[in-house]
């Protein structure tokens, strides 16, 4: 029996120290199995919040790889380090002053370092979401807010692109700005949204909300489990 158990165990290295952990865990759970406790560098555990950036190298591979610790399975001989936070500067702006319809260089103006891009593609290789990061930086340099926003849509702000960039570009902040500009200036206003806001203001949910506030935890849970989904289309 001991043998079989042995087969399912693999070796990983956390900041240089070796641990034996069961196969099939994510990097995050493997670290916890090894006795580490996440205080920072972990959020949703579901691949959405981007807090769990991790850098690793596999044995016999000369390349460093980047991924999300909560989404990636551990492999035998993985050398790991956690990077919970990327201290990249985010620029402040007044959304009403940055109309891309009136200005050519809105993105370049707030993030001038995009002019230092050498097209090395290191950012795209680092991206755990497989975004074409280099291509959106190039689009941003051309003043193409729409394309920057579209290409970067799946970004989780883990920051791995920025930590790898030889030109010190803050890709994810740039991309967020592009998406906000798209929302504010390029997308059509939705008549549905206006209608909904009016309904909310008129209090269509007030009654239901007050009822929920009176519920016990168990009643709430039941309510959540039995919730109805809106019909598609």
């Amino acid at each position, binding site marked *: 029996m001991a043998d079989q158990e042995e087969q399912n165990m693999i070796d990983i290295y956390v900041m240089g120290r070796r641990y034996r952990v069961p196969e099939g865990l994510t990097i995050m759970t493997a670290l916890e199995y090894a006795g580490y406790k996440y205080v920072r560098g972990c959020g949703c555990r579901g691949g959405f919040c981007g807090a769990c950036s991790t850098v690793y190298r596999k044995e016999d591979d000369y390349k460093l790889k980047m991924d999300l610790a909560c989404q990636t399975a551990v492999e035998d001989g993985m050398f790991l380090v956690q990077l919970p936070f990327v201290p990249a500067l985010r620029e402040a702006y007044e959304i009403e002053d940055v109309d891309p319809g009136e*200005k*050519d*260089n*809105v993105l*370049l*103006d707030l993030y*001038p*370092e995009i*002019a*230092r891009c050498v097209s090395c593609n290191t950012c795209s290789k680092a991206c755990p979401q497989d975004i074409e990061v280099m291509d959106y930086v190039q689009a941003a*340099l*051309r*003043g193409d807010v729409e394309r920057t926003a579209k290409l970067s849509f799946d970004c989780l702000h883990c920051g791995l692109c920025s930590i790898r960039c030889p030109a010190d570009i803050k890709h994810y902040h740039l991309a967020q700005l592009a998406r906000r500009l798209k929302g504010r200036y390029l997308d059509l206003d939705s008549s549905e949204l206006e209608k909904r806001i009016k309904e909310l203001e008129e209090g269509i949910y007030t009654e239901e909300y007050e009822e929920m506030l009176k519920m016990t935890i168990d009643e709430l849970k039941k309510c959540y489990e039995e919730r109805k989904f809106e019909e598609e289309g």
Partner: protein
Amino acid sequence: MKVKRDLEFLEKVEELSGESVNACIRCGTCSAGCPFVEEMDVLPERIFKRIVLGDREGIMKNNTMWICAACFTCSVRCPRDIDIAKIMEAVRLTLLREDIDMVDLDGLDNIEELPQLAVVGCFRKETG
């Protein structure tokens, strides 16, 4: 004033530029044709002399290599076929490669009106 000699400087500049600094005969053709010479505190051919002397410290106090915009006028006219623009670039790089910027990115307030290629070009020549 005594020059503090950096004996490796000449070697470094020749290595980065691929050009021979010693080939210069100080004829002054580069300075005569340089459209920026009035803005420079030291003439290009004087920079050559300082490189040979290993006067890195002195050169770094001059603005010559930062005024040079790599227009290649000197390069095409040099009777000794020295690609002087490459030498200026090498001198710039010895500083930029220490992760030093000569332009303050966050201090620029005119980017909106500039064509992108100006910004790209400036950063390539003036940031490390």
